[in-house]
């Protein structure tokens, strides 16, 4: 009885159906433990690994320089910036927008540096629904290859003050 202390020596290995289930459950846990590292090597979608320490003001400077050199237009006063395929791009999360708008080419790989100027933010690319966490002081490098073309929205999904639900941005992916 679970509410009374068991009598005598209660040590007994599992038997019968119970043993079968413990074995099955353990096997399933092993399958899951193997799938994760397997995908790490074989899969195309993995959490970005590269991070550099960066002072928010230094990061803002790099973003501004990136915008100046690669600017190709603007939309609602937000610059549209087209980085070199294979090259570095910058994305700044700040209260309350993602800056600037990035213009990418389909099936080209970019190193997008993401960081925050102020609070924590959550970068969410929609509608494909890809999400990473953004911290001030951390330059998080996503090596990303858009495999579909079109216009993608960025939103913020970590609470960052009263304007949080107005924090958006954009990525435009062109066919090649």
């Amino acid at each position, binding site marked *: 009885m679970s*509410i*009374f*202390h068991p009598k005598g020596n209660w040590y007994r290995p599992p038997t019968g159906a119970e043993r079968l289930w*413990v074995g099955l459950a*353990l096997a399933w846990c092993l399958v899951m433990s193997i799938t*994760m590292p397997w995908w790490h090597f074989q899969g195309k979608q993995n*959490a970005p690994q590269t991070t550099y320490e960066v002072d928010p003001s230094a990061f803002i400077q790099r973003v501004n320089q990136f915008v100046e050199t690669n600017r190709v237009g603007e939309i609602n006063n937000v610059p549209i910036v087209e980085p070199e395929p294979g090259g570095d791009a910058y994305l700044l999360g700040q209260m309350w927008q993602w800056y600037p708008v990035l213009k990418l080419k389909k099936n080209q790989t970019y190193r997008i540096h993401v960081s925050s100027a102020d609070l*924590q933010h959550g970068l969410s690319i929609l509608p494909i629904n890809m999400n990473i966490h953004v911290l001030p002081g951390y330059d*998080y490098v996503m090596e990303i290859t858009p495999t579909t073309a079109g216009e993608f929205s960025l939103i913020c*999904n970590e609470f960052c003050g009263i304007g949080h639900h107005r924090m958006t941005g954009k990525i435009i992916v062109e066919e090649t």
Partner: protein
Amino acid sequence: MSTETVKAAAHRVCETTGLSIFLKAQFFVKINAVLAVIFLLVGGIAALLLALTRWSNVMLLNDIWYYRMITLHGVNMLVFWIIFFEMAILYFASTTLLNTKMFSKKLAHVSLALMVAGAVVTNYIILKGQADVMLTSYPPLEAHPLFYLGIILFAVGALLVAFNFFATLYIAKKNKTYEGSMPLVTFGAATAAIIAVVALLHGAAALVPTFFWSMGWMEMMDPGVYRLLWWGLGHHSQQINVAAMVSVWYFVATISTGAKPLNETVCRGAFILYILFINLAAAHHLLVDPGLSSEWKIWNTSYAMYLAVLASMIHGYTVPASMEVAMRRKGYNKGIFGWFAKLPWKDPGFSAVALSAIIFGFIGGITGVTLGTEQINIMAHNTLRIPGHFHATVVGGTTLAFMGLCYYLVPLIFQKDFYMKKLARIQPWLFGGGIVLMSFGMSFAGTYGVPRRTYDSDFGGAILETGFDPIAHIFLGLLGVGGVIAFVGLLLFLVLIVTAVFFGPSIKGQKMPTWQSAREQKMTDDLISIGYEEEGKDYHIKTPGTIVLVLIFLLSFAIYYFANWAALADLWHIR
């Protein structure tokens, strides 16, 4: 004669279970349970307002109050309701089940005062509008110092209760108030208490420096380090909740059906897995964070989480299997599931616990493990899929199990009977059903990327417009409807408990009124009374029904898990 009266005053014998209930400890069981229920009401009112705000056609609150209410809801539910109730469980499991008085009444008073002060201060500062930082209070977001101080006071109080618990275990052992090993329910409670100590130490490491920072005495803690430490609190706390919930499952299974654990070794071993392998599973909250290597993330999720998952899967078998054996011994042998239909569904304590196990396993567990996979987390982090998952664990699982326990706590500890028993019978279904609907609404809206903690799912007024598919809004409607139903279930629970505790007919000196027929109750009583004598017997009874149930579970798990990998393969390439 004189020693007899002294003893008689210190404890009473429960007419239903024959266990000794120590009056001082009983006071702390009662007061902690009552406080828990008060904070459940506060959190519940916030819950209704939140559900009616995320329902995008309603959007009841304005933005400021939405963020304030989400902070209020998270803190009152996940911290105050759950932990006050767990304190009641610790007092109960260490005294009554071990047949001992508590270690220190003074200490219990001090911890109670600290916890109440902490909870009141925190609520005050949130409602005053100076702590709109969510439960997690991630820096650089900054709250009024009283917010951190309130939570620290509360946590210190809880730590002292855990200390009192361990000291009570110690004096029981020393005074030999029981022979052999402690009962399984106490063992589970001890598991919860051990994890609580680890959790609270992490919490102190995150919140004490943050409190100093808010006072201007220290630099701000690095936001990444804060997250690591904070989730050492936040994640471990969920393991406390799981351990406490499973203990409640075992307790109610015994008392409502006469079930006894098939194999103490297996059940206890599973609890030990929780303690050993939970340590670093906090990683699954940081899977898409910068600054941590993939090796670290993968190792900590798979080593620490999967063996804890194994533990839950074991309990998920042993609890229903023990009930199946009990039912078959009562003669309900028809087919594979004949016993299942004959379970005491009319007993709200039982049905709450049964629903808790089903919701926790089938929805909470499967989604949790899947979303906690490093790569799959890319599709889930901070979307509504996350609250969709944890409302099936900590609400449909833990909260519902605790509600179920209350249907026993009121007659056994408060010695009061319920009014409106018909309504009591539907209460677990209403609450559990509402939570399931809400959890589905959240989870499916989340697959469209609808964010959590976000007032306006249409991002009205943003510089660059965006929005969601109309179907996502239908799921937000489901969230709203489910939330309202769950709130009605919660309110009904509170009404039933309050009317019984404060105005209910006294049942002092009587057995607890049964929810079942007299014949059923007699069979359950017989099993309970012979169970202790029969320790180690009746393993020949097969459990085909439970085997089928757990196989269905495993199949659902595998389908959901691999479907998520398949969906992941469609995303842009990222590394």
